[in-house]
């Protein structure tokens, strides 16, 4: 299914999600607020998006951008959910109740960015040791072994 057909399908079923949907470089993106994330994700699941393939985050200068990628096998369509959360108090509702695939991926995002997924049954570090300090994929993470490579231009 192409993006235009997906947008039509989405707008016909959930008109309130329609203004949040945009097309960025050929990908369908649904931008939602953290408090509406669970509802929007549930709506997309009902629409046929049965796979949650990616959960990750990007550290932007002013906020964290959470990125979810959903895939609907019956429609062969993919959509991103992007959700900006506060950098000082990063909290968002967990999607593990909708897709168990989120269980480990949200743990990883917590491990690397320190984003708290509320309602996650087992939110603790997964790749790093339990006593690790800081969240390494944040841009302001400091470590004495981290050396900035010189610029090449």
């Amino acid at each position: 299914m192409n993006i235009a057909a997906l947008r039509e399908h989405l707008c016909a079923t959930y008109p309130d999600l329609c203004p949040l949907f945009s097309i960025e470089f050929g990908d369908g993106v649904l931008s939602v607020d953290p408090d509406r994330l669970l509802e929007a994700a549930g709506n997309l699941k009902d629409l046929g998006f049965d796979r949650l393939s990616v959960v990750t985050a990007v550290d932007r200068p002013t906020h964290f951008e959470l990125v979810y990628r959903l895939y609907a096998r019956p429609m062969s369509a993919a959509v991103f959910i992007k959700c900006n959360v506060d950098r000082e108090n990063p909290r968002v509702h967990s999607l593990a109740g909708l897709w168990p695939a989120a269980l480990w991926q949200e743990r990883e995002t917590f491990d690397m960015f320190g984003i708290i997924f509320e309602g996650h049954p087992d939110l603790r570090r997964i790749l790093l040791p339990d006593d690790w300090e800081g969240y390494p994929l944040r841009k302001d993470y400091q470590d004495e072994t981290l050396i900035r490579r010189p610029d090449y231009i």
Partner: protein
Amino acid sequence: MTAEIGSDACFTNRIDPGVDELVVNVGPSHPSTHGVCRVIVHLDGEVVTKAEPVIGYLHRGIEKMAENRTYLQVVPLTDRLDYVGSMYANWAYCRAVERLAGIQVPERAEYLRVIVCEMQRIASHMMSLGSAAADTGAATMFIYAFDQRERVIEAFEELCGARLTYNYVRPGGVSFEIPEGWTERVLQFCRDHREGLEQMDRLFFGNVIAKDRMKHIGVLSPEDAVAWGASGPVARGSGVNWDMRKHDPYSVYPRFDFDVPTGSNGDCYDRARVRLFECYESCRIIEQAISQMHPGPIRTPGLPRLLAPRPGDAYDHIESARGALGVYLVSDGSVRPYRMKVRSPAFCNLALLPLLAEGHMLSDLVVILGSLDPVFGEVDR
């Protein structure tokens, strides 16, 4: 006092089930954990009540390292993700870069990528089948499988000089043109490989011990496979007919005629057998690709060494030997990626271990772990 063998009186000293729980630590350095994986196993007698994988022993921070390198310098890092199938991570990363920078890849390069990735699938599945057989005690099968794998590795060595970390697929094409006579040797390998597969099918999959050890062990339902984000042979072993080469096609895959083998029971046996049948399909794809390929450029001409793509993001994925391998790249317009995320199929498949191992014997845990085929370079990144 002597008790009749087999009667309850024989087992008067056994621990009453449900009373004593034993916690056993398997790994991280254990030959059958396929790398450095630790599993904390809670046992009731010999039955697993809870298995909790502890990962991260091979974490090198590749996603953080990528933020500190130029786009071309990240390619060797992707080799170190899935070290049994380096070509896949190379390709997935390059596809994301090409999508981000709007690079068109020459047709011949796409064919070469398909050929090396299908050969890589054979090599990776041989590794998986060989070690799955060794887990169940079939040491002969291990040697047979590694013999086949060695032929692929030799062909890769001839192609790009490396046996494991190829750095072959680059943004905009591939690094080397194929050597003289290489395609003939690959075609000969495909013919020999089919014979080898039949031999392995008879030797291992028809064997009663292998069936006893693998059938009805670690059963994964198709609903769980989809909900837990399983992909690749793990999902297809449960009957989920989903292969991105077929159902979300990329590159030149729509031009090939091939089938997607699926299992029906979702047990360890089906997952392993799907891998065996996928090797036949890979041979078919390689033969078609070699016959369709025409001479031409293998790299996009005039591509700068320092790529600075548009600000924005891009996600692209391929079907690796383990499943959906995706790379998410964010660019801020500079010469380094702002963020790279690797969606690792082995990581998502390994999350199923607690679900699959529960209720099975401790000795089956090893077989279940082997059937998920995790490669810890990719799990831990």
